């Protein structure tokens, strides 16, 4: 496998010795610049001289750890629930599939604060379900780290579901047919044939999901509140820093960005090549 990979990369390398079409290259570079130039703005604005001292705040690292933990847990929840949901939308014959698919995007469109309120209405102490949870198990989600995970998962799941559904629709269903004739039920077919073939789409969805969860602010603060060490993630820290000292906010944002870029840059290349 590794050999084959080598030959392929080699081939790609020589291939692109040829010219890239400007009509694609130009907008691609404009797009890249558009996404990156604001980052440069932040970098220029950053208080480099006082940076080291500002970084020695324990709060930053606590918030960062919590952010990474919650985003990862939320992504896991999204993968576990979202991939089956995407599969249902793409492969099963549902009545009103179009409507369900559109409803899945609801958390995307909902302003995050309203999303947080909606979660409170359902899972809060006085919420539809939350009241039962509190009564029967003495357990309540708001103001806990679990609450952060729930809020992030709620906001981030549509990204996963829609990406994965797109990947499923683009996949060739005849391989699933072949698996069926070999006696594989839908679950086995899904696990061993469908999933590996849509792996790039799943990875893309998981990245979107993780990044969105990492940057999530409105729903988290509304649903889970803001208590350092328990529910204060980086975006919350950034927001509050912005109120008093915008420089600190910039530093915090850059730390968050740096960590996420490092994680994604190291992880994705491995996933992408490993799963194909």
């Amino acid at each position, binding site marked *: 496998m590794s050999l084959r990979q080598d030959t392929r990369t080699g081939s790609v390398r020589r291939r692109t010795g040829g010219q890239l079409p400007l009509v694609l290259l130009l907008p691609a570079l404009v797009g890249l610049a558009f996404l990156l130039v604001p980052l440069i703005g932040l970098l220029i604005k950053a208080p480099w001289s006082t940076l080291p001292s500002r970084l020695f705040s324990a709060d930053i690292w606590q918030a960062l750890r919590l952010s990474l933990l919650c985003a990862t847990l939320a992504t896991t929840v999204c993968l576990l629930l979202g991939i089956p949901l995407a599969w249902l939308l793409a492969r099963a014959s549902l009545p009103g599939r179009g409507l369900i698919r559109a409803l899945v995007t609801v958390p995307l469109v909902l302003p995050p604060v309203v999303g947080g309120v909606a979660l*409170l*209405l359902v899972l*809060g102490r006085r919420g539809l379900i939350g009241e039962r949870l509190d009564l029967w198990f003495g357990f309540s989600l708001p103001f806990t780290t679990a609450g952060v995970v729930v809020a992030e998962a709620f906001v981030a799941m549509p990204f996963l579901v829609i990406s994965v559904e797109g990947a499923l629709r683009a996949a060739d269903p005849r391989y699933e047919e072949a698996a069926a004739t070999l006696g594989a039920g839908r679950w086995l077919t899904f696990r061993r044939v469908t999933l590996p073939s849509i792996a790039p789409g799943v990875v893309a969805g998981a990245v979107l999901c993780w990044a969105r969860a990492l940057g999530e602010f409105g729903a988290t603060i*509304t649903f889970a509140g803001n208590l350092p060490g328990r529910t204060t993630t980086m975006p919350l820290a950034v927001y*509050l820093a912005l109120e008093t000292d915008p420089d600190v906010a910039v530093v915090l944002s850059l730390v968050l960005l740096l960590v996420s870029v490092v994680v994604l840059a190291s992880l994705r290349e491995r996933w992408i090549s490993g799963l194909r």
Partner: protein
Amino acid sequence: GNDSPAASSSGSSTTALSGTVNVFAAASLTGSFTQLGKDFEKAHPGVKVNFNFAGSSALAQQINQGAPADVFASAAPKNMDQVADKNTPTTFVKNTLEIAVPTGNPGKITGLKDFADKNKKIALCAVQVPCGAAADKVFKAVGITPQPDSLEQDVKAALTKVSLGEVDAALVYKTDVLSAKGKVEGIEFPEASTAVNEYPIATLTKAPNADGAKAFVDYVLSDQGKAVLTASGFDSP
């Protein structure tokens, strides 16, 4: 009565105002300033007031980045200080804290001392935002260490948690309790006077419509303006 000021202020205006006045105002002023704007437009036909409501710190950022603002009304002196190109600010209202509890007071909150009770669910504003800073001052003054479950990003977020019954109590402004009448109950406490929040307003030196800006600030500071503001629960300075 909002009809009477129209006549008097049109009399006070010396030159005929025109154009638009861009007012950057703290989000907590949304209700009262919208009303004020309408009244002002009635008093000065031909003038249009455009509001940009957002958090005070975001507004300060925007103004510093060259936003075409004529007037800045901030929810805290601190954010006003961040703006460089401004004329001398004036405090136009004050706001005092109150304990907000859900209707019926299920947490049986009686006073500030309940904020130290670990078994009660408590929300406060974060110290970085004005209401949080004020609350901090109050607790320092009375010597109570609060045990909050959440430090909210702004006072409305704290209020939402109360109105949904998520917390037993929160420290918010009087104006907020008033705006959420029916869903929350207010409990006044004497120490509130130790941390009064002042709202400054100022015209900006680079205002595209300096005359309009001045007229609007004057209108806010006028009696008619005060009447609208106090109706929303603000105290006069």
